[in-house]
């Protein structure tokens, strides 16, 4: 079960990565031009949900929860990685900015 669940999370994470790479708002903010069209984004989003849907259809509640949680964490990590590449300001400097004017 573990391997299949991991595989499902990986498939969804890969589709989330594609979604993120072509996300229009992220690309605009990062000055990277236009992103994917609406149709492609919908297809990728539906594809990302299919592994979870599969677990629901098989009645595997544990695998579904693992997939949902794992995909959520993977989505957050993908967003952080994409941001670190397009806007590589490290967290080392956030304190400096917030601390400005407080000292």
């Amino acid at each position, binding site marked *: *079960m*573990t391997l299949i*669940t*991991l595989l499902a999370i990986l498939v969804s994470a890969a589709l989330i990565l594609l*979604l*993120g790479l072509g*996300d229009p*708002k*992220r690309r*605009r*903010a*990062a*000055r990277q031009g236009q992103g994917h069209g609406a149709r492609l984004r919908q297809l990728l989003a539906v594809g990302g949900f299919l592994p979870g849907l599969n677990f629901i259809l*098989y*009645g*595997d*509640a*544990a*695998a579904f*929860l*693992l997939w*949902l*949680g*794992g995909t*959520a*964490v993977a*989505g*957050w990590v*993908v*967003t*952080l990685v*994409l*941001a*670190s590449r*397009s*806007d*590589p*300001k*490290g*967290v*080392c*400097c*956030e*304190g*400096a*900015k*917030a*601390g400005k*004017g*407080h*000292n």
Partner: protein
Amino acid sequence: MIHLPKQETKTMVAVHGWSGILLGLLLYAVVLTGTAAVFAEEIGAWSAGHVATQSAFERPMADTLRRLGDETPARYREAVDLFETGDHDLGLFFHRHEMDGGELISRGLFYVVGQDGRVIHRQAGTNEDVYGARNDNALSAFLVDTHVRLHVPNPWGLLLTGILGLSMLVAAISGLLIHRHLFKDIFTLRRSGSAVLANRDAHSVAGTWSLPFAFVLAFTGSFFSFFGTVGMPVVAMAAFGGNVQALTEAVYGNPGKPDPRPVAIGNMDRINADAIARAGAIPTFVTIENFGRADAKVTTYHPPKTAAIAPMSLLYDGATAAFLQEKPLIGPKPSAGGTLAAIMSPLHFGNFAGLLSKAIWFGLGFAMCYVTYTGIRLWLVRREGGVRSFAWLERTNMVVGLGLPFALAASAAAFLLAMPLGSATWWTPAGFLTGTALAIGAGALAPDTARLGAWLRSATGALLLVLPPLRLLTGGPGWGAALAAGQPIIVTLDIAFLLAGAWMLWQLRGPVGAPRPSRALQAAE
């Protein structure tokens, strides 16, 4: 997403902000310790150097149980709890139930049987003494206790964490209502330039990805906090004339005609073997009701079966050792309420599918810590330059946000030093308090928050790097010995601490307080 009228959105923003600001720092402490406590069992094995892999329930125990039953005064034979303690030793708690100041407690005799079948510990006491922190589990017990009740005495600690869970629920719901572009913004993370924009994106992106679990964890956490402190007494008052013991027996007990004839307990080894075969897993806990009587009942509790979330429990006739039925958590027959109550624990602790589910729950907990921390920062940067200065709150947020991981690492170091001396139950919280005092001192002395953040990060990173060598120097098993004994978790946690420490120090590269130019498009652009 959900479009509220402007005025209602404003109200929701205020509810979201103030619920976070008033209780956010305590909530952060509860969530962070809960995130670490997901691995409490593994941290226990790592910190105490436990290398045994054969469960106490796989070893013969029937003769020992009968012998100890004979040695124990009859007044403490009302019930027996059997569980693993220490390095897969067997704990047997012969006890009776009694009310103490309106609280249902268990009092009796506790024995620990070592791997060679000999009694290595004997103690008279209550459930609090038996299930409380010991020298070898002081670190994991400290983590769990901080998460469950912030070390505030019962019932106030549980009520406090229950209220914190509710405030998290309020923040999650109001956050969902005020975020107009939940999915549109899910990949938008502008990290430089405007502090408001950077913090808003950081907060909302982590919050959006983890939103379903924020509901689940907040609800189940509140459920556990309020179940015993509010739910049980209220139901007992309404339906059992205030008798909590009668309520507990009705809900969790096994109804049947009492038969007090003295009959020796059935073969416990047979029950264990049958239970392991039926559940496909070793019991996590076993209870015996009416020990030594004809109506004795044995219940074995197991982790969920493959594809299931709810834990499994099996009921046996205590006198004959015959299997009776699969037992629901609540009541004698399966019910929707019983199933719901049974899945609360795996949903909250993420312990339904071994290390994978724990790792995922750890990641979700970490995301929620990040949401809480960045939420408070967002509230503060929005008020920068206002009439009122919140510099003290900014420093406090940093002392708690970065000082708490440092204090937890300090408690782990104190545990490793004190455990071989037998004084870990005292030194683990003392180490935590020392770490806390140092973090507060740094908060008072640091010239600015950038410097404070760098100090706390470097101290935490250095301490995390020190933990694995400290464990080895204080007598913990080496990597070869741990792997040979089938305990890879010790090596895994060593590597995790080394990586976490190195990552924290890696973040500090470059001069502190030197922002790099932003490539990101700003809101005003």
